[in-house]
Every structure is written in C-alpha cells, then in structure tokens.
C-alpha cells in the first residue's frame, strides 16, 4: 500500500503560534470531555452496597492543563525534528553498522551475563531480576520460532508455558520425579500440545489464527482453574520441589551441596544455581534455533513466512512445516515453564494470563521479528523497564501499555531491522526488514 500523502504536513512545518495554541486548545477540550466523568467524578460502592460519588475537579483541571502544555511541547518538537517518519531516523548505513556492532554486542552481552552472579553476588534483588529477564529471553526466543521465523501468529503462547509448569509441578509433587526427568517431559508434553493447537489452525489465516490461538490459551487457563482435583484450581500447586544439583540438594542439610563441598551454606547458592540453569536453557534454545535456521526445516519456516504458495509449488509440505514450528516453539515454552515452576515452588493460573502472552509477543515484535539478539535486548528492555516502574504500583500497567504503544509507533519493525542470511557464497549481506515479509498468520 502506498502512503496517502498527509495534507497537513506542510501546514505543520510552517505553523506559527496561533496554530500551536489552537491545536493545544482543541486537544485540551477533547481531554476535558474524555476525562470529565471518569476523572472528574469518582464512584465507590459503600459498605451497604450503595453507590456514592465525590468530585475531583482539581485532578481533572490539572490533567487538562497537562494535555494543553503537552500538546504545545509535542507540536514544537515535531516542528523541530520535522515530520520524517520514525523509521527513517535510522538510515540504512547505520542499520548495517548495527549488524556490525551486533557481532560484538552479542558476545559482550554473553560474557557480561555469565559474570552477573559474580558481580552482583550480594545483590539478591538483581539476581532475581536477572533470572526473570532470562526467563523472558527464553520465552521470547521460543515464540520467535513461531512468529518470527515461520510467520505464524500465536496469541496463546503462555498456554505452553503453563503446560510445562504444571507438567513439572504435578509430576514432581505426585510422583516425586526429579527435575531432570521432568524437564524433557515438560518439553515433550508442551510440544504435543503445540501440535494439537497446530492442527485446527493449519488452514487459518491472519486474524482467524489470532483468535484461535488466543482461545486456546484461554481454554488451557480455564481448564487449569476448573479442574480442581488435578490442578488445585485457583489455589494452584504448592510445595513444588526445588531443583537439585543433579541429585544433590542445594540446602542447608548434611548432604546438601554446601556441606559436600565443605563451604558455608548460603541461600544465594540456590539463586546462582537457578541463574545458570535458566541461562543454560536459554542458550540451548538459542543454539538450537540458530542451527535449525540453517537446516532445511528452518529455511522452510522462513520460506513459509515469505510465500506459502511458492513453498507448495516447491514440494514443501506446509502442514508438517507449520506443525513443527508450533511444536518447537511450544517445547521451548514448556522448558521455560518447568523452570518457572521449580524456581517459584508454587504456581497458580494467575501466572498464565493473556497479558503474559501479549508481553512475550511484544518482546518478539520489539526485538525485530526473527532476530535472536533483538529478542534478548527487547526482553531486557521490557522486563527491566517494567521493574523500574515498580514504585508506580497501580500506574505500572498504565505506563507499560503506553510504552507499548509508543514503541510500536517508534519502531514498528523492532530494534534489529534486518535479517541475516542462513547461507552465503561470498559475503553474508544483512537483508533490510523492508523486504522481509511477516507471514500471513
């Protein structure tokens, strides 16, 4: 589609103060109407169930004033920067430069990550946060196979995370199976569910795919909530065994790892162990994905994203190709879920809501679909950013939602805007994301 030229572009560039004030005034007026009832009036149900209300005109006035001032500032900024689209702010030369930097950023990032427990050994908070970020990096990499490579939209990815988590939790609490036995099982079970989801969506496109995957995620969550005898319902599963160092527990007991090594026990040992565990799982995901991309199956995924009809004309079985993509992505989600369960020691359906799926999808899209480094950076930015706003409490999701909108407007194609070829004769030229299709799903 060609962009329809915006008539007001010229007017904006040359606009004077009257125009500025007029825009700001109109915006303030709109804000006044929008917020008049929602902010100006506060309702609350009293103890007797009777609804009461009080006014907050002061708040309303300050918000409207803020919109007025904000419009002027934004309009001024827009005139200074010019109406160039955000995408053009990053010229192609810088883009290819970024791929060059990427070659060094990735190893540097990896080395830094390996050293995190050493550097921040005493800062439990940072270690916990790092584990959280790595979990999302892994989820992002897993979903990237489905969305970024195969171009299939999946709005219910969290279902596989849940399947993995509950698989481990139930197998471990009911049968006492160890984490290392359950981990592959969790992956396999999740992959199985991925295939199950794959079947109905084979013939679906775009938004039909979106709703079916979303519905699938909700079905899994609702079944977990309601199948109380198996899953404990809304109360979840607690007392999930902590991971062991290949059978040696990481606790303060006599046959704990600390005692065996003859060092003093510290609870941080377990955190550090968990950190390296999720790092290893994430790196495994990354390694497998990178290898798969260079194998025929991975190329077929990407070809599917580019043009499904052409794939069929070349004799590629699009059914199995799609199913393997779903299964592979789901398997990584299942691994991550098992890790989540062992780390938390307690899981409940609340951890597996649609918001979680949306967050992981946002990480993949913000990363630049298909780019492994991009996904890692996006996970760091999103989860880290989300933590930064912890002090805002109830406003946190508000800020998070706004950030999602702004980021999409700023970089609709994500941080890393190019694709690396999987095979080359003389030189691996980065391919601009403008050429790369995003699939029909």
């Amino acid at each position, binding site marked *: 589609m*060609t962009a*329809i030229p915006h008539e007001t572009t010229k007017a904006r560039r040359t606009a004077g103060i009257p125009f500025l004030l007029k825009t700001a005034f109109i915006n303030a007026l709109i804000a006044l109407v929008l917020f008049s009832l929602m902010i100006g009036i*506060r309702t609350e149900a009293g103890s007797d169930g009777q609804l009461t209300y009080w006014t907050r005109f002061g708040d309303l006035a300050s918000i409207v004033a803020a919109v007025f001032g904000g419009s002027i500032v934004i309009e001024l900024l827009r005139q200074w920067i010019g109406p160039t689209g955000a995408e053009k702010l990053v010229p192609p030369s810088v883009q290819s430069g970024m791929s060059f930097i990427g070659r060094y950023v990735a190893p540097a990032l990896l080395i830094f990550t390996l050293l995190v427990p050493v550097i921040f050994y005493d800062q439990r908070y940072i270690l916990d946060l790092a584990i959280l970020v790595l979990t999302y990096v892994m989820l992002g990499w897993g979903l990237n196979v489905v969305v970024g490579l195969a171009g299939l939209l999946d709005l219910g990815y969290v279902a596989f995370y849940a399947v993995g988590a509950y698989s481990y939790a139930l197998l471990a609490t009911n049968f006492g199976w160890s984490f290392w036995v359950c981990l592959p099982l969790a992956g396999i079970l999740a992959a199985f569910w991925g295939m199950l989801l794959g079947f109905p969506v084979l013939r679906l496109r775009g938004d*039909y795919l979106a*709703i079916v995957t979303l519905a699938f995620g909700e079905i899994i969550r609702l079944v977990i909530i*309601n199948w109380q005898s198996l899953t404990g319902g809304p109360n979840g599963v607690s007392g999930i065994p902590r991971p062991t160092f290949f059978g040696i527990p990481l606790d303060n007991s006599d046959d704990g790892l600390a005692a065996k090594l003859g060092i003093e026990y510290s609870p941080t040992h377990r955190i550090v162990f968990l950190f390296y565990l999720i790092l290893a799982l994430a790196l495994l995901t990354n390694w497998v994905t990178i290898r798969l991309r260079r194998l025929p199956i991975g190329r077929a995924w990407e070809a599917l994203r580019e043009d499904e009809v052409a794939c069929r004309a070349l004799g590629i079985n699009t059914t199995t190709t799609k199913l393997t993509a779903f299964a592979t992505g789901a398997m990584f989600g299942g691994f991550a879920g098992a890790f989540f369960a062992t780390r938390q020691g307690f899981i409940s359906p609340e951890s597996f809501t649609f918001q979680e799926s*949306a967050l992981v999808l946002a990480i993949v899209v913000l990363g630049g679909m298909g780019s492994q480094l991009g996904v890692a950076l996006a996970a760091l930015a999103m989860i880290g950013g989300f933590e930064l706003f912890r002090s805002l409490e109830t406003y946190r999701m*508000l800020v998070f939602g706004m950030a*999602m909108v702004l980021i*999409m407007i700023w970089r609709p194609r994500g941080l890393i805007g190019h694709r690396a070829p999987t095979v080359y004769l003389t030189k691996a030229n980065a391919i601009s994301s403008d050429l790369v299709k995003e699939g029909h799903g």
Partner: protein
Amino acid sequence: MDYFAQQLINGLVLGSIYGLIAIGYTMVYGIVGMINFAHGDIFMIGGFIALITFLILISLGLTAIPVILLVVLLVSMAITALYGWTIERIAYRPLRHSFRLAPMLSAIGMSFVLTNYSQVAQGARVKPIPPFIIGGYTLHESADGFVIQLSNIQIMVVLTTIALLGIFTWLVSRTRLGRDMRACEQDQTMAALLGVDVDRTISMTFVIGAALAAVAGLMYLLYYGLVDFFMGFVAGIKAFTAAVLGGIGSLPGAMLGGLAIGLIETFWSAYFSVEYKDVAAFSILIVVLIFMPTGLLGRPEVEKV
C-alpha cells in the same frame, strides 16, 4: 421445555450484547484490517460512563426513568465515541501503513492502558447500581410451577439491539458515509483517488463502533446491575470470538456470531456446567473454524495463484 425456553430468552439477550460489541470489531477489521484489541475496554468505559451519568442524574433529583435512560444513552454514546476516535488518532493512525503486527500490539497496549486507567480512576471494586427497570411478564407457567419470565430489561435490550441494527444497516447501505466505508474496505488508495476522505471515514468507523459498544456497556450495566474495570477483557474476547465465528468483516455475521456465543454460553451453563461455559464457547469456535476457515458468513478466501 419451559426451562429450555427460558434459557433461550436469556441466551438471546446475552447474545444481543455480544453482537453489539462484535459489530465494532468487525467494522474496524473490515476497513483497516486490524483487530482492535482495545474495543472490549471501550465497552467497559461505556459502561462506566453510563454508571456515572446515572449517578449524577439521580443526585440531581431526576425521577423520570425514560428521560434518565435517554440522557444516559446519549451521553455515554457521545463520550465513548470520542474515546474511540482519540484512540484511533493516537495509537492506530501512525501505524496505518505499517506491518500488520505493529497496530495489533499497539492495540493490546491501548487495552492495557484503558483497563488500568479505569482501575486507577475509579478503583478496583465492583460498582453496583440498584435495578432501574423492574418487572416483566410471565409468559407461561407449567404445572410443576416453573415459570418462563420475560423481564422488561430483557425486552429493552433486544428492542434496542434491533433498533440499532436497523439504524446501522441503513447507515452502511444508504448513506454517503456508508458508501465511503465500503469503498475504503475495497481499496483505500483507489477510494482516496476518487475523493473519499479516507482518514475521516476510518475515524467515523471507530466512532460508530465505540458508540455501539457504549450502548452494549449500558445494556450490560442495566442487565447485570454492575460494572468493573476488568469486564472489558472477558466481554471483549467473547465478542471478538463472536465476530470471528460469524466471519470477521461481515456485519450480519457479527450479530449471528454474537447470538451463537450467547446461546452456547447460556445453554452450556444451564445443562452442563457453568465453569466450562467459556471453554465450550471457545471450543465451538475452534471446531467451526476447522470446517469453515472464514467463519459462518465470512467470504471464503480465494487463493489467487
């Protein structure tokens, strides 16, 4: 039999509400090809605005119920429509010609914003209102004492839905705006070349969709007697499911899908289990799509090679 008839009535009423929301999804999809994930929250905002307007009118001493209802209807439609318009301007228009996933994520972000805006602005607790429209008719009383009831509020929901559908169908098929909308649906570039103001038409689509959602919000408030900040999510995905089930992009499909989801939910709750009613609705959606990949009334997608 009586039990069945009663459930049928309940299902149709619920389905009408879903249908009204589903129309907003389907319209936006038809014209800009995106899922407006924030639409469920627009419905929620509509409910809240209706609630607050009620409160104000009553505390002003108004007692004539029809007048109150009319004012509430108009105010909530107007303000909610402005929400729809603003959201399109801020979150979707800059991404109009971008990659498909970007506007979708922007919409999901917007949905988070609206949910939490409402939570912050009005608190997290459920807001009940006393029943306004009471009474109804007993249609039939069987020997064992079971009565089929048709309450006035149910009649009102269905009548309002029918009236709105009538107006809406007229709007789309007979007016200049409707023609412009259909033109943009076919080919935006061509429509622009032929003098259709594409921006305005798309804005109007969002405005109409939001206004219908506001009506649905009001109906929900009157029917269930409460609103809360989270109701947009569940109702939103149900309505979205309805739109897809009916065939997204098709207006009669949206209404049909809404009724279907309403009936499935009600009957499943009545005859099987309340807990699994949503699971049933989603599963039926999946099964239908396996056999009809473009929904009940959606245009089958021809793969031009």
